[in-house]
């Protein structure tokens, strides 16, 4: 049987945050733990009494108008806008670094061609696909 609970255990029990289930019955029998728990409860009551000054509705309304104006001036966050932004980034990279960009494009085409032929088994459906693929591989 526990002789006393720590302040931390008593706090968890007060907050209902998975504290020891035996705390409630212990508090009925133990004046010392009961006093600490009472003091904690009083402190939490004072904390709860800390009110926030109310903001008049017209202040909120003015703030909302300012906020929405601010957001309208900001770059759009829609999926298409973000996609366009991404593509613009890729395009400016390609303009600044044309050779590496061409290399990436060629690698992507080669990869995609090979995957297309092997995944969809075009080599088995279309006659001569293997030869075309071989030529493509040699060219790239």
């Amino acid at each position, binding site marked *: 049987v526990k002789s006393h609970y720590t*302040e*931390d255990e008593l*706090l*968890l029990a007060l*907050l209902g*945050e998975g504290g020891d289930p035996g705390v409630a019955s212990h508090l009925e029998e133990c004046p010392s733990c009961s006093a600490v728990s009472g*003091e*904690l409860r*009083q*402190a*939490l009551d*004072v*904390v*709860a*009494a*800390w*009110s*926030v*000054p*109310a*903001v*008049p509705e017209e*202040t*909120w309304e003015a*703030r*909302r108008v*300012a*906020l*929405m104006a*601010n*957001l*309208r001036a*900001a770059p*759009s*966050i*829609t*999926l298409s*806008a*973000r996609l366009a932004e991404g593509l613009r980034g890729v395009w400016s990279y390609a303009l600044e670094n044309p050779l590496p960009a061409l290399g990436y494009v060629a690698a992507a085409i080669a990869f995609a061609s090979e995957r297309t032929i092997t995944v969809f088994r075009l080599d088995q459906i279309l006659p001569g696909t293997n030869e075309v693929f071989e030529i493509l591989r040699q060219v790239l």
Partner: protein
Amino acid sequence: MTRLLSDEELVRETLEGREDAFSELYDRYRRQVYATSYRITQSSEEALDATQEVFIKLYRSLSTWNPRKAKFSTWLYRLAANHAIDCWRARRRRAESELVEGAVERDPLRDAFHSPQREVENREKVDEVKRCVDDLPELQKKVFVLRYFQELKLEEIAAIEGCSIGTVKTSLFRGTQAVRRRLARSIDPKAGVQK
């Protein structure tokens, strides 16, 4: 009758370019974001600005939210807490460089927003809590605000912070202990000494 759209649906519609969907998210969460910011920065003006900035950040990073990792609200509160911590840190640096004394600065909007009826009777104690939270290290402050005011579970905080549950528990224990001791000292200066 119009159906209330879920956070996930509103996020998707915002990403498809519907401005009113984002406006709806703003209406849904502006108060909680403001409250989180306020409790960390402890200034209404700064919290309002921080709320605005959090929603701009949110808009820009909306496509990175993963619903399988965290609820939208949890993700947003973390964003708000992190941003408020940045604001608090910047203000603290400014205050240090200007050699300004005094822990919590007077809030110019406070009187305008506060009605006397809403004043808590133990205001001195609440002020003590505010000073104590202001002095907490960053992680403790964040965990304290997210757990006690946004009512996130410790597991949720650990998940969004990318740290262990043990770290979060320790931060919460230390923060709460500091507040409890400070309150005890404010009543009886001899109290609050480590057991």
